[in-house]
């Protein structure tokens, strides 16, 4: 009977998760959707505590309090610009929790002998969970610049990674096949776990910091799979349902990001993209034709007397935390009767929807944030395109230069506007490490400055115009 009640509670939790995700599909209801999912989680936890046999609540309370406090403090204090690495960390802990659960179940079940399928599930949970954990932590370190964001490459890297993966498969195979025999099983199990932790690290190391969002999203799918696999171990259906939901969500987001960058997942994971940034960039800056720069007061005049301005933000907006300043500038322009819109490229910044979140933080109404497909036809009609710390997503080479690594990626057509103002600190390339011919166009003016500083100065000048 208690079993039935808790199963029903789990079913309710699963339905709430689904409903929550459904509501996430509209900005109107998204916040409620997230809360509903949280309620589902709460119900699942309470049902577990009430319905399952719990000998002592001491460790449970300690663990929950510590975890909740750490999680809450981290979540409430993190800057919006550091969101990607925060998600990575949380995600890693989720995977870690699944792996630990599998380990504990292994210890519990081994003496008594396993049911048919349990060894596979346990081993799968352990590997996936461990890879998720260590991989996410490396992703975090890279984004937080605790280690270099550059791809870390060394000789025989891919070969040794492959070897490691094969070794893990071998050990796991032995563990599963030999699950019902005696022998050094426990040692091998721990070996599999440690090897998986290592795999997570070496898997993420050669991937460039700017590709981390793809990796995080993939690891998100992994943590879902780990939870689902843990559900197979525990025969717990809400774990399976939630894990499957998260797994598919991660897979879809990964796919979307790869599409938007016009690269395959394999290319993202294995090509050490961006390792040669410095070289190409330097070449571009020294040998190229000259660019026209612009002073803040000239920029202010251009903007202030325009009829319509489209702002195309990129990673530089996040890096210089200029979201409030850009909004102030837009407001000032609108007060002068200028029509202002934002052009949001799907992979501008370093996470899917990164620009949306930042600009939303500055209370820019989301109807003003136009998708690439919607805004591109508007550029030819715009007087000024203001490129704010964006680079790759506005690089015209993507349209015509077959040798460019960006070739084929859909871009924002800022170069079709009457005037282009680009705010960035130098002529250095962006994430893809290629030079940008946009900067050398006749109609382009460069404003070399940190994103925020540049905006503030334009604002000041604008007040005088």
């Amino acid at each position, binding site marked *: 009977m208690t079993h039935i009640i808790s199963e029903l509670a789990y079913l309710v939790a699963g339905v709430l998760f689904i409903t929550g995700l*459904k509501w*996430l599909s509209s900005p109107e209801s998204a916040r409620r959707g997230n809360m509903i999912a949280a309620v589902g989680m709460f119900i699942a936890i309470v049902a577990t*505590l009430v319905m399952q046999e719990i000998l002592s609540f001491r460790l449970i309370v300690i663990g929950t309090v510590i975890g909740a406090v750490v*999680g809450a403090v981290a979540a409430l204090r993190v800057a919006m610009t550091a969101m990607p690495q925060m*998600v990575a960390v949380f995600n890693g802990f989720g995977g870690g929790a699944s792996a630990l659960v599998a380990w504990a179940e292994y210890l519990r079940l081994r003496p008594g002998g396993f049911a048919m399928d349990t060894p596979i599930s346990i081993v799968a949970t352990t590997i996936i969970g461990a890879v998720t954990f260590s991989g996410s932590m490396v992703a975090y370190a890279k984004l937080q610049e605790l280690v270099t964001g550059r791809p870390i490459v060394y000789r025989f890297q891919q070969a040794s990674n492959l070897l490691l993966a094969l070794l893990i498969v071998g050990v796991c195979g032995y563990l599963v096949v030999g699950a019902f025999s005696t022998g050094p099983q426990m040692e091998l199990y721990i070996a599999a776990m440690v090897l998986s932790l290592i795999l997570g690290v070496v898997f993420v190391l050669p991937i460039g910091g700017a590709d981390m969002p793809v990796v995080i999203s993939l690891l998100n799918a992994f943590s879902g799979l780990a939870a689902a696999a843990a559900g197979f171990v525990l025969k717990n259906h809400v*774990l399976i349902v939630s894990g499957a*939901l998260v797994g598919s969500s991660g897979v879809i987001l990964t796919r979307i990001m790869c599409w938007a960058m016009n690269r395959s997942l394999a290319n993202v994971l294995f090509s050490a993209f961006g390792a040669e940034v410095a070289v190409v960039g330097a070449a571009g800056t020294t040998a190229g034709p000259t660019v026209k720069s612009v002073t803040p007061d000239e920029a202010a005049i251009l903007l202030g007397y325009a009829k319509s301005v489209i702002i195309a933000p990129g990673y530089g907006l996040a890096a210089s935390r200029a979201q409030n300043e850009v909004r102030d500038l837009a407001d000032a322009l609108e007060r002068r009767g200028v029509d202002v819109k934002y052009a949001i490229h799907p992979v501008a910044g370093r996470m*899917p*929807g990164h620009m949306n979140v930042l600009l939303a933080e500055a209370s820019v109404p989301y*109807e003003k944030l136009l998708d690439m497909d919607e805004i591109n036809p508007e550029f030819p009609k715009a007087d000024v395109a203001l490129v704010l710390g964006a680079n790759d997503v506005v690089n015209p080479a993507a349209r015509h230069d077959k040798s460019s690594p960006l070739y084929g990626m859909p871009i924002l057509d800022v170069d079709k506007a009457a005037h282009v103002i680009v705010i960035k600190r130098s002529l250095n390339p962006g994430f893809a490490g290629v030079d940008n011919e946009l900067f050398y166009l006749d109609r382009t003016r460069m404003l070399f400055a940190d994103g925020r500083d540049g905006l503030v100065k334009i604002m000041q000048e604008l007040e005088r115009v």
Partner: protein
Amino acid sequence: MELLFAVYIFVLATFVGFEVITKVPKLLHTPLMSGSNAISGISIIGALVIAGFVEEPFRAMLGLFAVVFGAINVVGGFLVTDRMLQMFKRKPGDREARRAQS
């Protein structure tokens, strides 16, 4: 049978996930990522049972860590998502306008 059941549920839930998630607009992909990430903290409910079984100290210790990890993921994940979503607003004053209409 138990296993079959589990496979059934996994397959159906995967379908649901794919269908539901593909409807989320790009605008909300970052919150979606962190929200679904919070849901993956569900393994905390496995951890709770294990941490409660104190008779075997080592296992209980593993459980404790798993609870801590899970709680970080769940609490942090939902809160951070909420913080992000809180910021998505229509035009200021818009909400009042709509309320007045209805």
